[in-house]
């Protein structure tokens, strides 16, 4: 590990390159405040709170309607009157100011997955969304970050945003992930190192042979949980994997950028994942990470198993879970909820028989949404309950009452825990 403050080189990191491009400057340095042109702005239900400040600002039109995406995901279909009102505010606003890219009920999905699978964010972009996990899109080689609704109103009006150029932490990974060990375990391992405050106001750049081998969905998982490190953005430099993924779907021109070989990093974390076991984040913090086999030895009973969220509910995740549960039953006393990340993923599950595989095992297979992830819609826990979850947060109160205990793990581990009725190492079922 490079000691903090050690100067590496004089070149620019990936985040600095992208922000220089957005600001129209040759180069930027950490700490510099820049005014960046936004390439993509995304809103989910929280965007409803953007409408009032937008009007109060005296704005009449949106800077570029083709660069604004609205996706409903937290309460779909609306499960409360409050949610129905938020949806209606957004529909009305989209109609009034002319925002055509609206992923409404029936064509919906978790906002970050909507951006990913439709090519809304491409290499070199500065993307913002009214959700903290917008960081997920950094996997495209973009600076993608969360903003609040008032700030979003300013972005809609002006197409610009002020940003302080962050210092970059480099996470270099080598070694191969063993059988039953996934990108989720890798990012949990990084969280154990960086902790929830270690990347505050910083960019995290993932590189090294292991990262280069990862598919786009795996890179999404890793960049997604960079949010839990407090980071402004988590990124992977674009390569042929990125370009292949975007080839048919990119919505606007790419500006692929690479970090300089002599870029200056604030800190470098080197990890070797050879022989690494699966990981689990225990209550009540995503950085309370321990090796899963160790936690499994404590025989922690599970009341609910949740396979969903923007972190891990892509088709690859659901296939992984289905392969484990095919022909089995979930343990008595366990409720299992499976929620795909988007409507196209739901349809793919339907075609592949994955829905039936889960429902045959006794799981509830829902339409695509944030579902049980945030404690405001469905799958809420009772105070003394335990949930094994493939999502990204386990703070007190995340799935309802502050006492409920959430363990964060890979999709395979969630399914294994549902089958055994206690926190389980998925490798025991392979």
């Amino acid at each position: 590990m490079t000691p903090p403050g050690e100067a590496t080189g004089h070149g620019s990191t990936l985040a600095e390159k992208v922000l220089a491009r957005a600001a129209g400057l040759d180069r930027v340095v950490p700490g510099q405040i820049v005014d960046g042109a936004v390439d993509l702005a995304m809103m989910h239900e929280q965007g409803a709170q953007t409408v009032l400040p937008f009007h109060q600002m005296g704005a009449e039109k949106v800077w570029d309607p083709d660069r604004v995406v609205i996706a409903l995901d937290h309460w779909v279909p609306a499960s409360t009157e409050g949610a129905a009102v938020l949806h209606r505010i957004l529909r009305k606003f989209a109609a009034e100011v002319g925002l055509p890219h609206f992923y409404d009920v029936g064509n919906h999905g978790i906002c970050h997955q909507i951006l990913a699978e439709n090519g809304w964010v491409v290499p070199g972009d500065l993307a913002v969304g009214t959700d903290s996990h917008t960081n997920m899109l950094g996997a495209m080689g973009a600076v993608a970050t969360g903003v609040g609704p008032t700030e979003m109103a300013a972005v809609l009006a002006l197409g610009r945003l002020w940003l302080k150029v962050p210092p970059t932490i480099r996470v270099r990974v080598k070694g191969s992930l063993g059988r039953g060990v996934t990108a989720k375990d890798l990012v949990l391992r990084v969280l154990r190192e960086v902790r929830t405050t270690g990347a505050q106001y910083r960019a995290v750049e993932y590189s090294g042979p292991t990262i280069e081998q990862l598919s786009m969905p795996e890179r999404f998982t890793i960049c997604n949980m960079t949010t839990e490190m407090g980071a402004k953005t988590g990124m992977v430099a674009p390569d042929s994997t990125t370009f292949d993924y975007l080839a048919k779907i990119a919505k606007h021109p790419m500006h692929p950028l690479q970090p300089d070989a002599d870029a200056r990093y604030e800190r470098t974390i080197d990890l070797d994942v050879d022989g690494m076991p699966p990981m689990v984040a225990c209550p009540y913090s995503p950085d309370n990470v321990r090796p899963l086999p160790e936690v499994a030895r404590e025989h922690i009973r599970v009341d609910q198993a949740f396979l969903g969220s923007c972190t891990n509910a892509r088709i690859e995740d659901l296939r992984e879970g289905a392969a484990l549960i095919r022909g089995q039953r979930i343990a008595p006393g366990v409720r299992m909820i499976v929620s795909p990340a988007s409507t196209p993923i739901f349809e793919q599950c339907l075609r592949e028989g994955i829905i039936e595989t889960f429902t045959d095992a006794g799981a509830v297979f829902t339409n695509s949404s944030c579902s049980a992830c945030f404690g405001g819609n469905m799958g809420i826990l009772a105070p003394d309950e335990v949930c094994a979850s493939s999502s990204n947060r386990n703070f007190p109160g995340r799935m309802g009452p502050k006492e409920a205990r959430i363990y964060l793990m890979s999709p395979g581990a969630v399914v294994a825990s549902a089958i055994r009725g206690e926190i389980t190492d998925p490798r025991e079922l392979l």
Partner: protein
Amino acid sequence: MQDVLEGRVWTLGRDVDTDQIISGKYLTIIDPDELKKHVFEIALPEFAKQARPGDILVAGENFGSGSSREHAPQAMRAIGVGAVVADSFARIFFRNAINLGIPTIEAPGVRALFERGDTARIEMRAGRISNLRSGASVAFPPLPSHLLDLLEAGGLVEKVRRELAARKGREASPA
């Protein structure tokens, strides 16, 4: 925004995330006066009833981490919180609070100087926070000028409103 702020202190621990400030079940509420009834329901339950305008929150590290929900600073603004001070902030909370016009100050070491009920004095431009009971104080780097301007304007809405109005003025005036 005044340059010197004084107020009664409420203290909070470290890592108070947005779920603990406004829990997920209230996220469909958009009326700030309704929201403020539920602020800190998990972290500091008496606050919503007993807080007075001008009160100052003093928190530990990583205040406001978690989601991007603006409900958290909105509820604080509705209560009339005079300032939020912490050892450190999560970035989205920091931006949201400043954008809403709430003086938001990062001052490493500040939490250890205060107990609930103390009176805090904040000198925004000089960069100093003092405990008027104990006399202890800590310096902080003053906010950069563009953020002070933002607070001066009363928040981002007002700042953009002025910018758009100026633009319109330019467009309307003959070349």
